[in-house]
């Protein structure tokens, strides 16, 4: 270590107790005493809570009174408090990048139990930081401007609520939805628990508001295909799939559907999960937004063979909205931040063959039953089984694809309440005996437990036990022609066979099948369960590790409608705050080429995924565009003549860390 290199180095070392979190496992006093002996260290202290105001003031005072010009704080992870301590330094007039944090909590006291070993480790890490800060340089924070426009991906209730909130603040919003209409899963629900208000009644006004909002550009039947750039300026390309109908010309009169050459609807209606049929030209549901028809290219004779008399076109001849020549188009937009609200899929119960879904027609999933009980559903609200009977006994099986080692380990959170709601509705519609097979009833939420009590009082049978199988095999005549749920009733200790006319599988919630592709496209992470990962599980449940990208709703994990709306509002607030601030401060950890050292070997040029490195033909040297550089350091490691450097991660800084942690070796 050479003092000359960076002037007169005066290091202050601060060891945090973090209450007992660190101090119980690490001998903080010993670490502080040890640090005091290290070259360059002028002051070494330990303190109960370094991140508290008095803790920060300690640093500020030392900078002011003892001319400390390097600060090492051994505390928690830098991802938590690096900015706190940089701020403290800055307030005392020291360049914030003379601060180095040492992680002796997450990486030490919380993962080790042996006090001696943990203390030795803390000393090693502190020594490394002390050696490292020697080489620190004053750096300027980079500020990037924030494009005020916001992209919302996904038009379910999360996306709708986020888009409206941002738009209401005066910012322009692009709302992109993959399906022909917004509304998402919520549009398919009948009533909502626990208040039993109708989902459509509360959702459709919001859908219309989206359509009418002057600040919202709504692109349905569209998908994001590429995302470039970073916080403040994301360049996004959206593919608009052809619906073969001009959105601006169609008025939603639905005449075309009437006159379609197909007299009968014969294609599975997606919105009703195949419980009803539609024509090749259709509107997903009555309140679809935009209220524009769409043509299914896999079903339409004209699009498949080119040989149809095109009666739909005739019906629309005045407006001329139908256009079989329509092609997909691409829109490129620039936005400052992105809210991802891509939702979920329901668990496919075919993965649990013992429940007979797909084998026995009278086994349903909860989403199908939502449609069955819905007044505008395929049976106009009549609960009739696929074989045309009104069920006299209905069993609802909980935790299908949830809380199960063989499928998904997580609790899907909404199935208990959904099942209570459906039990109530089925009973109301049919008067059937309803059985709920459950492991635990989870009714945590405002008014939820009360609703559970209500359904209990309505005479629904609750059987505590995971259903072993659904079979159509009758043990005795009373079971003949019925489905039988075989279950161990753990409250009575008996294996029971319950004959049922209809079985409803309360399917769990899963990440979308393409969640991984979406995650990669937006450069965010997934949790182990495949849902998108939030930046902090408690304090930042909508931001992600990628600045300027927020997540809302079920793409982040199972939750009910109120929680979804809250998270969507929170994500919107973050996006608005970002846009209103107008800039974002970036870590100044960019790489740069030392021009006189560069030989122009071009090794670095193709390595940069952001095209930040270019070759200057005139100078015959490489050049790094600091604005494009994201600071990964890959080119630095690859530069064969050591002529690229990275701020905050200089070779010398890392070498001294290596040497520091190994000084005893």
């Amino acid at each position: 270590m050479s003092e000359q290199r960076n002037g007169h180095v005066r290091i202050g070392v601060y060891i945090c107790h973090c209450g007992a979190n660190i101090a119980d496992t690490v001998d903080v006093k010993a670490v502080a005493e040890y640090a005091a002996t290290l070259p360059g260290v002028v002051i070494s202290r330990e303190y109960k809570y370094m991140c508290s105001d008095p803790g920060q003031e300690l640093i500020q005072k030392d900078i002011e009174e003892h001319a400390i010009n390097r600060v090492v704080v051994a505390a928690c992870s830098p991802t938590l408090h690096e900015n706190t301590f940089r701020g403290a330094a800055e307030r005392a007039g020291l360049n914030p990048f003379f601060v180095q944090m040492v992680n002796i909590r997450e990486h030490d006291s919380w993962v080790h139990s042996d006090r001696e070993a943990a203390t030795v480790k803390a000393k090693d890490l502190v020594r490394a930081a002390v050696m490292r800060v020697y080489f620190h340089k004053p750096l300027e924070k980079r500020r990037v401007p924030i494009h005020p426009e916001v992209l919302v991906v996904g038009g379910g209730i999360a996306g709708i609520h986020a888009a409206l909130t941002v738009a209401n603040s005066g910012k322009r919003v692009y709302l992109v939805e993959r399906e022909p209409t917004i509304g998402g899963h919520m549009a398919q629900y009948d009533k909502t628990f626990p208040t039993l208000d109708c989902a459509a009644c509360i959702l459709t006004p919001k859908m219309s508001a989206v359509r009418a909002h002057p600040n919202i550009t709504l692109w349905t039947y569209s998908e994001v295909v590429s995302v470039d750039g970073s916080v403040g300026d994301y360049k996004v390309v959206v593919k608009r799939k052809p619906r073969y109908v001009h959105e601006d010309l169609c008025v939603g009169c639905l005449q075309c559907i009437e006159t379609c050459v197909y007299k009968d609807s014969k294609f599975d209606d997606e919105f009703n999960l195949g419980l009803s049929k539609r024509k090749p030209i259709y509107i997903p549901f009555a309140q679809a937004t935009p209220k524009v028809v769409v043509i299914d290219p896999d079903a339409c004779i004209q699009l498949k063979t080119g040989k149809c008399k095109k009666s739909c076109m005739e019906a629309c001849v005045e407006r001329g909205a139908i256009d079989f020549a329509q092609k997909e188009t691409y829109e490129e937009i620039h936005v400052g931040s992105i809210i991802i609200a891509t939702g979920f899929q329901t668990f496919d119960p075919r993965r649990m063959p013992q429940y007979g879904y797909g084998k026995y027609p009278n086994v349903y999933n909860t989403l199908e039953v939502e449609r069955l009980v819905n007044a505008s559903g395929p049976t106009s609200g009549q609960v009739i089984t696929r074989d045309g009977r009104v069920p006299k006994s209905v069993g609802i099986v909980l935790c299908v694809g949830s809380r199960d080692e063989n499928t998904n380990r997580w609790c899907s959170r909404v199935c208990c309440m959904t099942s209570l709601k459906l039990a109530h509705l089925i009973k109301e519609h049919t008067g059937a005996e309803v059985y709920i097979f459950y492991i635990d009833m989870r009714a945590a939420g405002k008014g939820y437990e009360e609703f559970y009590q209500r359904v209990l009082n309505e005479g629904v049978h609750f059987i505590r036990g995971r259903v072993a199988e659904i079979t159509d095999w009758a043990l005795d005549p009373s079971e003949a022609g019925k489905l039988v749920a075989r279950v161990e009733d753990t409250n009575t200790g008996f294996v029971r066979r319950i004959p049922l006319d209809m079985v409803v599988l309360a399917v769990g919630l899963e990440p979308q099948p393409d969640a991984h592709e979406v995650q990669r496209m937006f450069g965010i992470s997934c949790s182990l369960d495949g849902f998108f990962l939030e930046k902090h599980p408690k304090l930042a449940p909508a931001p992600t590790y990628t600045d300027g990208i927020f997540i809302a709703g079920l793409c982040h994990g199972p939750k009910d409608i109120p929680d979804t709306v809250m998270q969507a509002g929170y994500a919107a607030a973050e996006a608005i705050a970002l846009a209103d601030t107008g800039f974002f401060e970036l870590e100044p950890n960019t790489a740069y080429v030392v021009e006189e050292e560069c030989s122009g070997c071009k090794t670095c040029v193709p390595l940069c995924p952001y095209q930040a490195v270019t070759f200057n033909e005139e100078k015959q040297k490489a050049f790094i565009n600091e604005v494009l550089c994201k600071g990964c350091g890959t080119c630095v490691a690859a530069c064969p003549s050591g002529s690229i450097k990275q701020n905050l991660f200089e070779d010398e800084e890392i070498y001294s860390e290596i040497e520091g942690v190994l000084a005893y070796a």
Partner: protein
Amino acid sequence: MEPSAKYLYYPGCSLKGTGIAYEESLLTTFRLLELPIKELPDWNCCGATNYMSVSETSATLLAARNLALARQTGSRDLLAPCNACYLTLRKSQELVAHYPKIAHEVEQFLEQAGLPRLDSVRVRHVLEVLYTDVGVERLRELTVRRLQGVRMASYYGCQAVRPYGEVDDPHEPTRMDQILKAVGVDVVEYNLKTKCCGGALTGTIHDVGVRLNYILLKEAMRQGAQAIVTICPLCQFNLDAYQAEIRKQTGEPIDMPIFYLTQIVGWALGGDVRELGLHRAISGKKLIEQWFTVKKEAETYV
């Protein structure tokens, strides 16, 4: 023993007694498939049922001796056609792998007996060998005659698919169905594939055992099966032996042949009725005669 025999055959008590037809058909089928197979010399009881329920350690010692003997021969694949043997041998391996105390006792025991330490002997089931090593397609190709129009239900018994999941999918086993279809049998839907056959209850709490038996037979009939195909000697025996009694009790006309999978596969491959032990059947003799002997002239060659 020459190490060339790929499969080492562990008969267990059943295949030398009530399940002799299983042994006969197994060896015939392997011969027809040209799979080298040799019986494990000096084998002993696998340690099933009574031992395993009374003392896991003692049962494991019994199993371990068989495994060590197998290890000594140099063959890797120990074929245990009986479901109980299969499960007990597999379970013993798991116990040794995960319970140091049992492992220690086994080690001491083997040392005293002058046997090698347990190593990676693979305990295998006939169904799994037919499905994995031979393959459905190969069986289809090798089939020389088909039981056309005969409907059968495949029945696994309670032990083969749990808990290790190597013989077949525990929730929805289909491998036997695939094999049967490949060799020309019509397979019916059968939901009770892994339900209890009555097991040892037919000998202890007879009524209950026979009732469980009846459930299986009745459902097979309801599904339109003319016969049931099994892979377990105890299941085969239970289902085969009490049909007369059930007829008497219920008045239902149950008289259904209960086959071993190897009998059906062996016959499709060209095996002879006697060498497949088909003549040993108790129930469904008429159908057997009709399918395998009388219509011999009319065999459908493919």
